[in-house]
């Protein structure tokens, strides 16, 4: 499995779609075989996975959005991306 580098450009897979579920008031990720209920951070990361932004940029955006230090979220963001890439919901382009 490729490690998530700062320069990687993750993109939400074509088959997957983000959805705000107004009935449950949760963020969801929809894909052919199922549904994933997302926590806020996972949603915010995925919403930035457009294949244009590099991981470092995504982290920077979230740092200002959450008003926290880089160290507080850098590892989390990479871990989330790693997991989602393993499940093929995100493609990682170097």
């Amino acid at each position, binding site marked *: 499995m490729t490690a998530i580098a700062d320069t990687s450009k993750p993109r939400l897979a*074509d*088959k997957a779609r983000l959805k705000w579920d107004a*009935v449950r008031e949760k963020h969801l990720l*929809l894909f052919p075989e199922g*549904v994933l209920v997302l926590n806020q951070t996972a949603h915010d990361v995925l919403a930035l996975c457009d294949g244009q932004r590099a991981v470092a940029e995504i982290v920077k955006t979230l740092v200002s959005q959450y008003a926290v230090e880089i160290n507080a979220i850098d590892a989390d963001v990479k871990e989330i991306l790693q997991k989602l890439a393993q499940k*093929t919901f995100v493609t990682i382009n170097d």
Partner: protein
Amino acid sequence: METPRPFSLLCELTYRCPLQCPYCSNPLDFARHTTELKTEEWQRVLTEAADLGVVQAHFSGGEPLLRADVPEIIRHARGLGLYTNLSTGGTLLTEIIAGQLRDAGLDSLQVSIQDADAENSDRMAGGAPSFEKKIRAARLVKSTGFSLTINVVLQRQNIGRIEAIIALAEDLGAERLELANTQFNGWALKNRAALLPSRAQVEHAACVARAASERLKGQMKILYVLPDYFEQFPKPCLHGWGRVFMTVAADGAVLPCQTAREIRGLKFDNVREHSLEKIWFESETFCKFRGTDWLPEPCQSCPRKEMDFGGCRCQAFLLTGDAAVTDPACSLSPRHNLIAEALAEAGTNEKLIYRNAVESLQTSSNRR
């Protein structure tokens, strides 16, 4: 505990089908349910489903593409923000229909193939030759810009060619390959002696699927659904009765799962008479096996009860005559001997009973 809301709705748009697969998941008496919901009725069902919490709509049949209004129904579902998934046998897919489905916003398209071997695929599907049309349809799915899923039901007469099946899916450029071992309810149960594989076959297939899955990581996702006759514990059928999933059948009957019509004595409310919300929360049938309070022993005191919910209700009924007992596929079931007996009979008969209207009326006449 608060009653959960469904995430997923299966719309069986029609029970009609040009294929006659002997393991079809439609009920044995499908030919007795001849009325079909109209376009506006399906659209209303989808609207009610979205309000109820459904986020994913699967469209299947029979063969859904026998209806000309599928793009219109899918467009409506997409307008509601639902993720849409269509399963087809492929034989009726044309450039025009594929384009209409794409324009309607369809998210995912799945084509079923019966075998990698053309002759055996045709024999399994019954009726007119279909293999070449299916291959053409799979290529068309790709060239239309959809991601392609290939569905294959595994059984005794194709499981030995699992390598060739995986190679075919690769060659077609599939992003996903669903290898689902036959679930022995309804038609498949009628044909069990001819379709149930041996343990050696199942173990070989699992090994091949695992290795291919590793090799094709990032290119093609392989879903290998284990056959419950060979497992120690039963499947958490649909993650629990009336918990995340519901089916609306071609005639508007609302079912906890698509095979539930095999359970005699259950009453199924119809969307023509009641709202989906009322049926989900209040109908006797949906409440009957929801949660774990109804579970008998050995399930009630079992630490796995929240994992498998006592297994499959249809299987419990079809094998024991009582839908409220532990699924006999569970090694802890007092009726687990039924599985051993079935395994002993595997391969003793090669003759197939095909799923068609004539057989349907015949096999369902003696139980009415």
